């Protein structure tokens, strides 16, 4: 491994850590614009995190050490995820540690930890949130895997870097299978990141809340870590989407200059993606929780159809 590889690796992680709240802020900004509200400022997530870190942490009496450990683990998982997903370069030393399947496993670890932690608080909302989170997870996870399978069948590899290299290298072609997979991926991303059609991060209604129910008992630094981790997750998903469906511009091989190109490309793509996300969130209404399985099952089926299409059309 060359120094550029390590550089790009460290850069990727640092970038993710630093930019993830920014992405959140950007999306909120866009959403506020679209909804005709005044935006809280693009740096609001940073201020929030800073405030939370300063606050005292209050935890439930029933909670065990598990409860306190979970935010760190979740954060660690998300940080690693950001390190694995090729954001700037495909030459990542950490990348062999986990391929696409292991990445899904990584997300699953985070999910399981946060769910268990929610149950650990011993409250009705905590267990409700855990149930809903796991419930969404078990539908979203295979769908996400199916999306990866489609991509890996095309590129004959499950390693993310190889997939990206492969997809980016081929001359431009329309992959109908990837189109299906892309839609499925979007659906999954909404569900996984607690975005609007599935969940609304802005409310605490017991009938609808999922992610907020999970973290209801967290406060102070723990909450800060979880919020940051959520931002990282969104960032990672965005990067994944970019890497899979729009991989052009990501640096390959040992070329420091390419990184310079990759960085603005990433910024641009992220900004566009965030805007689109905000648009979708604004346009769609939050669905009832009973409808979520149908939504995710559709995503799952789309991903599977994507695979079938790949076989049928041979591309």
């Amino acid at each position: 491994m060359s120094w550029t590889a390590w550089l790009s690796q460290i850069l990727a992680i640092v970038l993710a850590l630093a930019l993830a709240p920014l992405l959140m802020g950007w999306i909120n900004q866009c959403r506020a614009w679209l909804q005709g509200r005044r935006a809280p400022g693009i740096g609001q997530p940073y201020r929030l995190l800073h405030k939370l870190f300063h606050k005292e942490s209050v935890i439930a009496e029933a909670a065990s050490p598990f409860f306190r450990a979970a935010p760190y683990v979740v954060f660690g998982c998300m940080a690693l995820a950001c390190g694995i997903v090729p954001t700037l370069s495909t030459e990542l030393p950490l990348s062999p540690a986990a391929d696409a399947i292991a990445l899904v496993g990584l997300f699953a670890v985070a999910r399981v930890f946060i769910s268990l932690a929610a149950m650990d608080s011993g409250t009705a909302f905590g267990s409700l949130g855990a149930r809903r989170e796991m419930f969404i997870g078990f539908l979203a996870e295979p769908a996400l895997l199916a999306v990866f399978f489609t991509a890996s069948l095309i590129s004959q590899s499950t390693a993310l870097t190889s997939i990206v290299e492969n997809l980016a290298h081929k001359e431009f072609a329309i992959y109908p299978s990837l189109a299906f997979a892309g839609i499925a991926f979007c659906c999954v991303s909404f569900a996984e990141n607690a975005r609007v059609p599935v969940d609304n991060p802005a409310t605490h209604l017991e009938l609808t809340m999922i992610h907020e129910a999970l973290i209801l008992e967290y406060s102070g630094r723990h909450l800060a870590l979880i919020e940051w981790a959520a931002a990282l997750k969104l960032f990672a998903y965005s990067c994944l989407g970019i890497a899979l469906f729009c991989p052009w511009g990501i640096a390959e091989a040992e070329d420091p200059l390419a990184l310079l190109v990759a960085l603005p490309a990433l910024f641009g793509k992220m900004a566009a993606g965030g805007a689109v996300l905000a648009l979708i969130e604004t346009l769609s209404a939050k669905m009832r929780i009973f409808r979520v399985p149908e939504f995710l099952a559709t995503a799952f089926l789309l991903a599977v159809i994507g695979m079938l299409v790949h076989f049928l059309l041979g591309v």
Partner: protein
Amino acid sequence: MPPGNGGSGVNSGWLPLDWIMLAVAAWGGLGALGILAWRRFFIVSRILFPLGALVGLVLAVLAASALGGGVETAVLAVGLPHLPMHLRLDSLAAFFLIVLGAVGAGVSLFAAGYFRRGEGTPPGLMCAQYHNFLASMAGVLLADDAYAFMVAWECMAMASFFLVTANHKSPEIRQAGFLYLLIAHLGAIAILLCFGVLQAQTGDYTFANLRAQSLPSFWATVAFLLALLGFGAKAGVLPLHVWLPEAHPAAPSPVSALMSGLMLKTALYGLLRVGFDLLHQPQGWWGVLMIALGLATALFGVVFAAVQVDMKRLLAYSSIENIGLAVAGMGLALLFRAHAMPGLAALALTATLYHVASHACFKSLLFVGTGSVLHATGERNLGRLGGLLRKMPWVGWLVLVGVFASAGLPPLSGFVAEWLLLQSFLFTPGLADAFLNMIVPIAAVAIALVAALAGYTMVKFYGVIFLGQPREETLRTAHDAGWWERAGMLWLAAGCVALGLLPTVFIRLIDPVTQQLVGAGLADQAGLYGWWLLTPVTIERASYSPPLFLFGIAAACLLVFWLVRGRYHGHLRRSPPWDCGFAWQTTRMVDTAEGFGQPIRQIFEPFFRVERTLPSPFDIKPVYRSEVSDRFWYALYLPVMRAVEFVARQVGRLQQGRIAIYLLYSFLTLLFMLLMVRR
């Protein structure tokens, strides 16, 4: 004294097989000592069981040393006159022996602390049956002729039956035991028939001969299907699974651990032995059938596990799921083998065997964990547990390892197996048949679904038992497990971690098995880039490095922890939970197991046969009850039972009491035979 003579040409000195036989005999001997010790509790639990664990460990080491070291055979002086018992130690057997010995050691260690004074069955008897169970499992793995195999197989069934029915005062447990033994026996009959077909009219039942026969494809198929039926019945493959969720929970927990962790594996061993070793000309559709059956079983098992309210039943269904995955993997290997793709077959087989070892570890761990919980609380119903992590930290944290492994989360053992399995399923584009090419990756998606549901189930399992607040007052007096139990669980948990972190090392152990069965191995490629990086095919194609993975997470965690605590402060305050400001919350308001399973019950409604009693609004003491039962029972088993009953009633009419009619039978028989003579 080595009871046999080494068959590989060396007459001086003891061969691994001899030592292994000695170890197995030692297990049997411990059982016999148990009978002698009968009610002497101390001797049984503090001496015999630990010794059993030691023997298990020795067995594992011996088997590991024999792995890949060529085939050894022995002929015992017992058995039928023309068919003395043949034993054989090859890589396949050695691998399963390693699993048996290692996991058996952990469970025995746990059992040393588990069995308590004054629990119905005399401890000595328990010990005898326990060690007989272990020894007969080893016998199954070593057997090299149909008779020895059947003897060991049925002894295994019988010993486990007695262990299951240890608490025979409860009619449900008796019934469960009966159902178990019945299905095991029917399965054994199918296996016997399978051997009968395999011998191809030669009359020689040694495996060497069975191996030498080449059957016409029809009969090979018959043999394969019979093996699938027989071993499937033992493993809990789909229509024959009904005994499993009854029997496993009924047994004392270490026994459940052995049954789920090891006995089911002997069934898989049997399938491997017949499907890969004794039968040579596999047909592609066998593999497809196995994949389909395996996936159906896995999905069925996990969906049922998700809605269980009894912790051991939940684990039992989860075992069905895992067996289903293993069968699917085996089917894929068979498919590749049928298409003459040894490399891929080796990959699928490695995944299967890895899954076998991993499931043996984590399922045993989970079962013994439930045993500790059961002992501490006397409760199996998830709805009455909760918050035990603080009362039983050892059990809680160790079970967490098992839960993670079972949920297929990296970097523990379950994930490696799943990862390998998914890799092998994604590789089919090399198959000659376009349709198969398309179907098999779809199966990978099904596996992903199963894995995700397993995660759901395990969160439910762990969260409801160990987290939150105790749902009953009695739980406040729960105590942690004793040192023996902790040691046993620690050993098994260490197994899960080691299997999870060092796949390249363990694949090296599996390598000789795949070399033996499909003529290709994974070890060289898998560890090409060092022990820490698993690359089953090529590094471009896929890679996974659990140590790096763990290191990544751990480093991130520690760094963040250090930064947060260093930069900010560590103030922490305990208070009643916030819960959106609702102040009157009690533990009864928290999701029970039933509530947790509700979404699954709704989505997979057609899978279940649900009986609900809903209270009317005017009930003073409203009772809500909902029972989930298995459709197979009603659609398959009851009709068969009724049919047998019907035939029995008709046959019973023959014996209707009148002597004249009896004489008439005799008379007609005579006339019939006389007419036959005339002809």
